[in-house]
């Protein structure tokens, strides 16, 4: 009280000093430098020392807490899996218009085949399937089953080629053909290495031991691309020598596709004769369009909506997870609400907020009298009571929650007592667990100390003379409490409420154990997405929304009550 009473005169002193400073310019130290600067210099050492003291904790928190959270939250918008796994396909799809109702052109399917072949060799295609399945159900199984059948078409081509020359299935033959002579084009291999590195997330450094010649790369571009994929994977992932391994089936698909267009007559590089023989035999080889190949693997591959989904989720960043988290979805036609029967998250957010309010309210009701007793009992009894309040802190959270299970279940202690007292018949025992009631009871119990302690610390500072003064002025006990004591304890209620509310909207274990289906929180859903469905993006989006809710509430509280009024002790 006394320090605030002095602010008046001190303020006046300051303004007086400012007035003189304005007239004379900045205040100077003895050596002529501005006083502010020399003061800062003098304080810098102190600040550095303080910083050094907190540095270990700061670094620890940054590395183990802030950084992982930031990384996790980043996943809520990150979406580079589509463009990384299918780089050429997504590029080719840009020119396709989903509203025509037609599937994409053969060229897109060809790009898709080679992208998918590499992805399936690297076992990345199922991840992409899972990702796209969040947006369109069934895509996951399309990717998985098609991934298994990619070899068939190449095998058929190989059989046909081997009829012209036995060596078409040999590794060293292919290595010689692809390496060619003259200037080489290592940039083709390098580009494929980068694509594979982006897809798999490994850096993939080292020598591939293969570079196509310029002439062959121009002549058979698709083949060279497929062979480069094979070479990079063989050398850098499997660690084998490229020349000793038989090429992938995709290489034959590439060759057949290239031969259609290529003019091999003038080619003089190694194995040019075999190439010419194959070109000559081409009309006799039965060719399958890749579109019809995919259609035969799964008829949904010609469904434009599948391709529209891939197109919609091609960009590196997406709002899809956030839209999912608020029961909306990003479709090729824009943003729309999910069907009624798939809406769950807004309801869960509302439930979480509502139940946190209930828990906060019951904590206030139960904690206020206890805090009042604590603050007003003689210190000996107050200490004992304080130990009782703190007792829950010394017991494991799981044990306490499980104890509530024992207490509240239908064959539990409370029901048994009620039945024994005859208040409830044995037939219709109360359902008090695995629902909202159970969660509210157990969480109120667990969070009660967080309400009592701030309340107590505020009440301790309210002198009992205020109540006496009110009574001497004619107020009844209730009026004295309500008009004089209660308003002064409001900062404690505010602090306790903020603490309990923020703790409870992020609570996970207790609702998981006693919440059943109707008493779970949004955090349980986040945990499900992080650990079971592995839809981390959606989990991160839900978490980010929860974090935003807390920050907004905190901000609102600061605006209304003022965070300076909160006393935690």
């Amino acid at each position: 009280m006394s320090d605030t009473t002095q602010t008046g005169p001190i303020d006046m002193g300051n303004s007086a000093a400012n007035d003189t400073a304005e007239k004379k310019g900045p205040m100077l130290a003895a050596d002529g430098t501005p006083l502010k600067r020399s003061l800062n210099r003098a304080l810098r050492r102190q600040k550095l020392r303080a910083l050094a003291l907190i540095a270990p904790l700061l670094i620890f928190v940054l590395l183990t807490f802030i950084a992982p959270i930031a990384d996790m939250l980043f996943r809520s918008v990150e979406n580079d899996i589509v463009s990384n796994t299918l780089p050429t396909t997504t590029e080719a799809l840009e020119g396709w218009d989903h509203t025509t109702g037609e599937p994409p052109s053969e060229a897109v399917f060809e790009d898709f085949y080679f992208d998918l072949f590499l992805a399936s060799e690297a076992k990345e295609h199922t991840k992409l399937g899972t990702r796209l399945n969040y947006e369109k159900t069934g895509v996951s199984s399309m990717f998985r089953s098609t991934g298994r059948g990619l070899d068939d078409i190449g095998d058929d081509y190989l059989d046909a080629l081997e009829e012209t020359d036995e060596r078409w299935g040999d590794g060293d033959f292919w290595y010689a053909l692809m390496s060619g002579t003259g200037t080489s084009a290592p940039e083709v291999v390098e580009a494929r290495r980068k694509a594979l590195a982006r897809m798999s997330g490994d850096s993939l450094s080292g020598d591939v031991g293969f570079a196509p010649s310029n002439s062959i790369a121009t002549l058979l571009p698709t083949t060279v691309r497929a062979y480069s994929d094979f070479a990079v994977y063989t050398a850098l992932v499997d660690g084998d020598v490229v020349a000793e391994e038989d090429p992938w089936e995709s290489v034959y698909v590439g060759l057949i596709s290239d031969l259609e267009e290529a003019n091999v007559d003038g080619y003089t590089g190694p194995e040019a004769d075999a190439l010419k023989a194959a070109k000559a035999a081409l009309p006799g080889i039965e060719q399958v369009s890749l579109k019809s190949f995919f259609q035969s693997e799964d008829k949904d591959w010609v469904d434009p909506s599948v391709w529209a989904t891939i197109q919609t989720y091609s960009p590196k960043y997406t709002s899809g997870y956030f839209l999912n988290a608020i029961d909306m979805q990003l479709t090729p036609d824009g943003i729309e609400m999910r069907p009624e029967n798939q809406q769950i998250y807004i309801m869960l957010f509302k439930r979480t907020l509502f139940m946190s309010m209930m828990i906060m309210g019951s904590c206030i009701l139960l904690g206020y009298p206890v805090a009042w007793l604590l603050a007003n009992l003689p210190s000996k009894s107050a200490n004992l009571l304080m130990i009782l309040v703190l007792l829950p802190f010394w017991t494991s959270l799981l044990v306490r929650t499980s104890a509530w299970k024992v207490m509240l279940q239908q064959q539990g202690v409370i029901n048994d007592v009620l039945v024994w007292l005859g208040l409830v018949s044995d037939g219709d025992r109360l359902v008090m667990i695995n629902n909202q009631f159970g969660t509210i009871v157990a969480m109120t119990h667990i969070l009660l100390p967080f309400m009592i302690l701030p309340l107590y610390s505020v009440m301790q500072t309210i002198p009992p003379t205020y109540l006496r003064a009110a009574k001497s002025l004619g107020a009844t006990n209730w009026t004295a409490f309500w008009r004089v004591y209660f308003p002064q304890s409001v900062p404690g209620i505010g602090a306790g409420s903020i603490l309990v509310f923020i703790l409870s909207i992020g609570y996970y274990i207790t609702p998981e154990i006693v919440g059943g289906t109707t008493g779970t929180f949004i955090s349980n859903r986040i945990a499900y997405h992080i650990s079971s469905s592995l839809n981390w993006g959606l989990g991160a989006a839900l978490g980010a929304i929860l974090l935003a809710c807390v920050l907004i509430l905190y901000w609102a509280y600061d605006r209304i009550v003022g965070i300076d009024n909160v006393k935690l002790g």
Partner: protein
Amino acid sequence: MASTSDSEAFVAFERVQKSYDGETLVVKDLNLSMPKGEFLTMLGPSGSGKTTCLMMLAGFETATHGEIMLDGTPINNIPPHKRGIGMVFQNYALFPHMTVGENLSFPLEVRKIGKSEREKKVMRALDMVQMGDFANRRPAQLSGGQQQRIALARALVFEPELVLMDEPLGALDKQLREHMQFEITRLAHELGITTVYVTHDQTEALTMSDRVAVFNDGRIQQLAPPDTLYEEPENSFVAQFIGENNTLEGTVKEISGKTCTVQLDGGELISARPINVTKPGDRTRVSIRPERVEMNKERLQEGAHLLKAEVMEFIYMGDIFRTRLRVAGRDDFIVKTRNAPDQVRLKRGETVEIGWLPEDCRALEA
């Protein structure tokens, strides 16, 4: 001991006892009665029971035994908020979440007084303590002295007939305290309020009160107007506690009427007025106020006993001189003399003879 239980008494304590722990009595057999309009101060060292008495009167403590009467009715069983007693607390107890105006309006609101009348009364009370411009401030924005005034105004705003003040000036600096002492007594007398004032500051008690009750050890040692208290203390505690005092110990030689002769432990003989010694041979402690000691023999009556004294210290204090003497074997004997033109300034080591009128020297119990 004052135990006048007259029917005129506005406030009366009758054989009141108080114990907190059931083993010791904090207030022992208290009897006190106050007429309407009196300003009575309870003065005493801490732990003497004065605050407990005040709290019993306010209703925050219950008497273990005895009866407290207010305006003829026993109030032991009336809760504090129905007693209608105004109270000023040590730390003012102004409600920090209300403005000054709301603080003053509070007792009127709980009495269900209409808004316009409430505002009128609040303004009148604020004007009374010259704080009319401060109605919209918060207590934290006021200085200690201003808070004190507001606390006073709040205790008076509902026009109680009895106001209790529990060391209300304890937190103020000396100058402000003296000013407020004057303000409080002025208001109390102007409004004709009966006031019970608790303090441990004897100057405050002497300057403000109609009567002072000196508390010690759970009892009222003396209840008297300030001048009587100062000049005619009834026992050694009061003599010691009020003002500065020289004491000398000895034995009563003889008593004759209003004078007695006391032989000090050093053998010297002095005359004194017997207060609570009854027969020759009683041990006694004689008390003389420093300003009643006389060094000028001409002013003493004939045949007065004189004592030899050696000057130990001479302190110049402006309006008075304060001389410390060695008398009858004790060197803490103080004499105060007025700074008059004819007054000699003594030097350390000088020997003087001192004496006093027998009626200024009171032979009290040992």
